[in-house]
């Protein structure tokens, strides 16, 4: 595109993230450090849907499928290999391959919005059901027992490549996750500013016109969808490492719904938005989770209903606009 200097917003956001990464381990205790680590991992997950939906215009309601696949791929591989490097690679590759196959079926079959949403939602729910029923010794991949709804505990966590004994401590994990967050954030920006990225955005705006210009729309959608799947898988790997545990809840309706909410609250069409949305919602969930007055689901349900009803213009444009005005870029189409 027209060569521009990196948007000031991008530089500022990156600087903020780096500052947080450096400062946090010094000022918070271990518990909070762990909390922030998982928040950062979930931010990476938010980015994956942010780019697929916000930029690609692909209504993926099952992003948790790739998140979960990444988590499980890591778990199974790490247990079998006893070393984490290969596990991390598979945690990205397996969901990406799955996204590629699913994407092929959906985009080359020219399925539209509603159908995409429902199919992707169904995929993650089917994984949920599937993994829940894998309890028992029979269900194992190599040395790794899947354990159904109980989940897989005591996962070997990340070690320095080649040295299985040298496991990362919480501070090092935090640095790693933050570094990955910054890399993914900047990488996606660069991608969206490239020729490929501009075409993806154009497809979101008007698929027909893109085709009329000779671009292969299906291929572009497939590629961005696959990338989103890989990034979500990476987030899943980090998530599994955070708790040294993975269970079918990574595939659940609750999980996939959260990801959607992060993107909507934060702002559909920006990269910073999903990050902010994720942080806000995670903070609220933690806050509500610790109080005993009422069930979390109940509260969130009421909040959604109240919002949807009391905001006549529609929840999405208003929140997105509020989000954009507060955290986002000056122009709707710009990238932050």
């Amino acid at each position, binding site marked *: 595109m027209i060569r521009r200097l990196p948007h000031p917003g991008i530089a500022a956001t990156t600087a903020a993230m780096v500052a947080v990464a450096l400062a946090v381990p010094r000022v918070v205790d271990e518990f909070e450090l762990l909390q922030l680590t998982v928040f950062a991992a979930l931010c990476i997950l938010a980015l994956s849907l942010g780019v697929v939906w916000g930029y690609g215009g692909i209504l993926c309601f099952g992003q948790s499928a790739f998140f979960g696949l990444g988590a499980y791929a890591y778990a199974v591989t790490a247990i079998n290999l006893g070393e984490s490097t290969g596990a991390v690679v598979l945690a990205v590759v397996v969901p990406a391959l799955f996204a590629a196959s699913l994407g092929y079926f959906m985009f080359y079959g020219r399925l539209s919005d509603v159908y995409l*949403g429902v199919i992707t939602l169904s995929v993650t729910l089917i994984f949920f059901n599937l993994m829940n029923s894998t309890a028992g010794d029979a269900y194992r991949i190599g040395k790794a027992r899947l354990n159904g709804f109980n989940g897989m505990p005591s996962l070997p966590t990340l070690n320095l490549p080649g040295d299985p004994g040298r496991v990362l401590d919480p501070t090092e994990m935090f640095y790693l996750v933050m570094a990955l967050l910054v890399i993914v954030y900047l990488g996606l920006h660069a991608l969206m500013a490239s020729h490929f990225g501009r075409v993806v955005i154009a497809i979101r705006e008007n698929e027909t016109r893109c085709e009329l210009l000779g671009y292969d729309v299906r291929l572009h959608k497939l590629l961005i969808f696959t990338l989103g799947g890989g990034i979500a898988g990476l987030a899943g790997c980090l998530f599994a490492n955070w708790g040294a545990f993975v269970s079918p809840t990574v595939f659940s309706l609750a999980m996939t719904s959260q990801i959607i909410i992060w993107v909507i609250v934060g702002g559909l069409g920006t990269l910073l938005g999903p990050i902010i949305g994720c942080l806000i919602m995670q903070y609220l969930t933690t806050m509500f989770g610790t109080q005993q007055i009422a069930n979390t689901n109940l509260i969130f349900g009421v909040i959604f209903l109240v919002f949807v009803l009391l905001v006549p213009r529609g929840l999405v444009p208003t929140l997105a606009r509020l989000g954009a005005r507060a955290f986002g870029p000056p122009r709707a189409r710009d990238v932050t």
Partner: protein
Amino acid sequence: MDLAAILVIEVLSGIAGLALISIGLAVIFGMMRVINLAHGEFLMLGGYAAIVATNHGVNIWIAMLVVAPLVVGVIGMIAERAIIRFLYGRMIDTLLATWGLSLFFIGLVTTIFGTSVAGIRAPLGSVAIGRYSISVYRLVLIVVAAAILAVIFVVLRRTRLGLIARGTMENPDMAAALGVSPPRVYAMTFGIGAALSGLAGGLLAPISGVLPTVGAAYVAKAFITVISGGTAILAGTAAAAGLFGSVNQLLTYFTTPVIGEAGLLAAAILLLRVLPHGITGRWFRGSL
């Protein structure tokens, strides 16, 4: 020979199960194009309604066939009047609202009943077929599912109510010009879709037990069945349930339930690749 009979019954009951959990969603999605993310919760509420009624002395059949659909039907109508009707045409907002409803119902039921599994036992016991025994209740489910589809067919095709409903869905303005109140029709249709789901939930309660979160187990399959079925409510649901139920049950019988589930998903994806508008997007188009 008995094996064949058992297999047939297994497959039919799998199809019946799919049809039951899908028909309510098919009515709401097929007629109103509303994606109801609270569908699983309607099933769940039906299950709880049946169980609570039974535990309070109501005859189990009345609890499942009358109380459950009534309760959930009313809940559905209230939800439509209070929330959904403001959001027609706004897909994402409808999704958020029904998702909010879903969370709300889960939270509400958890608050009232706690998270433990409630249960009632399947009535009627079992019957022997050759060397195998099979729960009579499963046979009942097959019959009931078929009966429900038949009743809906008759109502839609042969009654004035059905005609009004179909007309309003096609062209609300025209219907209004003819003196029909579209809002009323929408409320009724949503209520009936909810009632059907409640009925299914009640009927399936003895088989699966109910948790506040049991909806999630049904939602995926219901959605896949409805989308694969296509625009015709009855023909589509029947065809898709038939196809997927067979694949699922046969694979489950000969291998494992896990492969059965995976087979269902694979079948659905392949089907939608070939027939993007569902089965009745291509065949039996224009049928009910």
